[in-house]
């Protein structure tokens, strides 16, 4: 199981700040997120693994923390 954190509009759409999901890689996790939360499908989110932005798909380990990051809007 990995911990999935939701931020910004993703948190509003899912109604959750975080949840635990079963996934072995980020591609599988993206699919699971889109199935579980179809409202997120139009949102072009990126993923961060344990606090670092992911630039390509990767495998996941139990206990990993994945953040769902909609486009940033700081500054």
């Amino acid at each position, binding site marked *: 199981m990995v911990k999935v954190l939701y*931020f910004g509009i993703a948190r509003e759409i899912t109604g959750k700040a975080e949840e635990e999901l079963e996934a072995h890689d980020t591609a599988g996790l993206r699919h699971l997120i889109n199935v579980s939360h179809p409202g997120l499908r139009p949102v072009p989110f990126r993923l961060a693994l344990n606090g670092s932005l992911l630039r390509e798909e990767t495998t996941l380990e139990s206990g990993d923390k994945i953040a769902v990051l909609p486009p940033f809007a700081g500054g």
Partner: protein
Amino acid sequence: MKEKYLIAGPVTPALISELMTSGNEDTGAGAVAVFIGRVRDDEQDERRVSAIEYSAYEEMAVKETDAIIDTVRSAFSDVRSVVIVHSTGIVRAGEASLFIMVTAGHRDHATRACRHTLEMVKEKLPVWKKELF
């Protein structure tokens, strides 16, 4: 001591004053460039923004801000310090939500590094906003 880059609420005038005078002992810094970002009362769908609520992924924001500062210091050799503070929570129109200060020996690197820092903050900081009316 870890730098504190995120604060709850607006970047207040008192904090800005404190940050701007914190490096006074560095007599080698001949130039100080500052950017202050404020909430603007934009009109959207015939409603006027009264405030913005900011949220952030704090763990990642610290890493990204550390990296931004390292990048700026490497790219601009004359830079002596980089300060970045971003608000979380509610900031009202007219209040400041972002403070960037770069000190350098001379004005060229101070001003260019300040602009470069701003652009990197907007691109890389995991911060989100929600307009309030």
